[in-house]
């Protein structure tokens, strides 16, 4: 058993403090900050979801927003049909995972650019499909979720905050578990060289599909909680490509393939975005665009690596 270094202990303590602080937010900070943090935690989940398929498997799912939307609508329809909020969340996650598995089977055969573009097309196609099915999904008019007026707004938002928090922790644990598991090794192998992995006997197809299903489940759950939060969803905002791009950038900033990278990226980016939105409501797209450009040009490999190098000093980074 390797002895725990003082650095490692410090890190663990910092982590625990963070968690405790986050858990106490509803009582420490006001409603305004709680809402911002809920949003940040949601993006943490989305970024971790992307981390699984992009960071580990190396398949750039630029259109992962499709599963966010599917999760949102699955929850919406489920609530409209009578199933409660809490019970609907796993339903939404399951539906998203199922779609990913079904669609992933053919789509994951594509490589590089083609896969990325196919996922974008998927997002738009599913959005259109939901619009055209109409009926219980509300179609182009949007879907209004049943409103529960028995709880005060504060109670509702607190519940949502904790759900997002729990989901963010869950997704990070999932990624951590993945990195030490067989599936994780298989994914890393096929990211390096798919043919090599196949030659080694890895069932790459199943691994990829499994990764995408996990990614979809996490993203779908986030979408589900988001839908309940918004109480009214429509195709344009549920299947918004911007979500994918933001998640992507967050993952990039934080560092792909790492466990905590996406969290950092999400926190930083979303905090920045929110501050921009409240200050520059008129030109927030412009500022966001500039931010994206700056990040991509300046930090194409994320900030986690340079940070780690800084942390570990002359010892160099521990892979």
């Amino acid at each position: 058993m390797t002895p725990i270094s003082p650095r490692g202990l410090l890190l663990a303590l910092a982590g625990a403090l963070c968690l405790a602080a986050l858990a106490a937010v509803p009582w420490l900070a006001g409603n305004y900050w709680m809402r911002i943090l809920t949003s940040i935690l949601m993006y943490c989940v989305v970024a971790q979801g992307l981390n699984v398929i992009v960071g580990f498997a190396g398949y750039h799912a630029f259109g992962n927003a499709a599963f966010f939307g599917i999760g949102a609508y699955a929850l919406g329809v489920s609530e409209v049909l009578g199933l409660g909020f809490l019970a609907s969340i796993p339903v939404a996650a399951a539906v998203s995972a199922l779609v990913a598995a079904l669609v992933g089977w053919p789509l994951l055969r594509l490589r590089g650019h083609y896969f990325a573009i196919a996922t974008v097309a998927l997002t738009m196609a599913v959005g259109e499909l939901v619009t055209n099915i109409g009926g219980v999904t509300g179609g182009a008019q949007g879907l209004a979720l049943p409103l529960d007026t028995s709880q005060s707004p504060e109670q509702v938002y607190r519940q949502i905050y904790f759900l997002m928090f729990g989901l963010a922790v869950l997704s990070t644990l999932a990624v951590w578990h993945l990195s030490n598991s067989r599936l994780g090794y298989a994914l890393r192998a096929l990211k390096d060289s798919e043919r090599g992995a196949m030659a080694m006997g890895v069932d790459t197809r199943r691994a990829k599909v499994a990764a995408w299903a996990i990614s979809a489940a996490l993203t779908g759950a986030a979408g589900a909680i988001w839908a309940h939060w918004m109480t009214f969803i429509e195709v344009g905002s549920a299947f918004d490509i911007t979500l994918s791009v933001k998640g992507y950038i967050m993952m990039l900033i934080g560092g792909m393939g790492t466990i905590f990278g996406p969290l950092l990226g999400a926190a930083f980016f979303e905090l920045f975005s929110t501050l921009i939105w409240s200050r520059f409501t008129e030109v927030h797209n412009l500022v966001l665009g500039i931010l994206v450009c700056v990040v991509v040009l300046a930090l194409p490999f994320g900030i986690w690596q340079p940070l780690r190098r800084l942390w570990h000093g002359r010892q160099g980074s521990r892979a």
Partner: protein
Amino acid sequence: MQKFQKTGRRTVLLAMAGVLAMALGAAAPAGAQEVLKIGAAVSLTGPFSREGQLLRDGYDLWKDKVNEAGGLKVGDKTYRVEVVYYDDESKAQTSARLTERLITEDKVSFLFGPYSSGIATATASISERYKILTLAPMATANSLYARGYRYIFTPSPLADSGLNPLLALASGFDPMPKKVAIVGPDDLFPNITSDGGRKYAEGHGFTVVYQGKYPKAASDLSAVATQIRAAQPDVVLATGYAQDTLLLLKSMRELRVAPKMIGLAMSIGVEDFVKALGQGAEGMMGVDYWVPTLKYPDPLFGNSSGFAKAFEAKYKKPPTYHAASGAAAGVMLQLAIQKAGSIDSTAVRDALVGMQGETFYGPVKFDQNGVNTLASASASQLLSGAPKVVYPQAVREAQPVYPLPGAR
């Protein structure tokens, strides 16, 4: 000597008392001017910007008028009215976010609703959750008022009756047109209006030969125009908004679709819409919830022409029913607040239910669901470039022209 001293002391005391009384009287604020904040997330940019801006102008005119008259008197307090506006960019989700911001950060006491039922559906959930009264004069989809929400009210007629004035007018023509085509974007209000129109048409001797929808943000409607042409209707009714209707009419003209009557579920009086149509706008019909020639009395504006004059003086253009509805909503809120004697949202909401009265917009009586059971609409036609009311008979300004010149 002693008598004089007693008198003197009393006088001084009285004088001191008098001065003290005056001082206290002067120090007391002459009717404390507190501020009543009302929030409005409207579409100032985006596809609904024309209508959204008109609506905002209406809200703003009401606010100015109330403040000019000294403010809103509630009980023994007088409030200066302030309206906080945000641009929702014609997007439902943005409107909802802004509505929440208005309630939780700007701490508004009431809300003025957005333009479009779709957007209002998103914001209604927020206002209902926080129990803040919303007056939404430009959100008329039936579904909004069928959900049992208690805090959303509209003085305008509901969407499903949107095409009725046009169809009623058409049924009076001789020979009566038989074939009707109904077309509009796939959105809440247009869909309800379209289905409502279909039901009315079929119940009054018309045949609906085509009922179609196109995507909200479509940029090419030549396919729709092609299909309309193939159906060869006598009457074409459009349920869309200014922007897409413009596109539709242009496409129809390009492909030589020329029915005997063209009617829109929206107003034909929006200035730059008419200009953008150019030649060929002549004879087009529209539906109005309000026209300047109505004669109803109003506690703030006097009557419709008083409102129209005030609007034109401030904005240098004639008002449409969008603006009128906004100002009238303000008047109704004012009446309800005064009836309730408080600015508590729930108390005012309860005062609004069952309140019966008149504003320049028309008679009003709200039911439990927030619907104005006395609302009605009229139809106008563009004649010699100006909109003239042609239906109902009672408020008719000119004889309707039918069929359109150049009809095939």
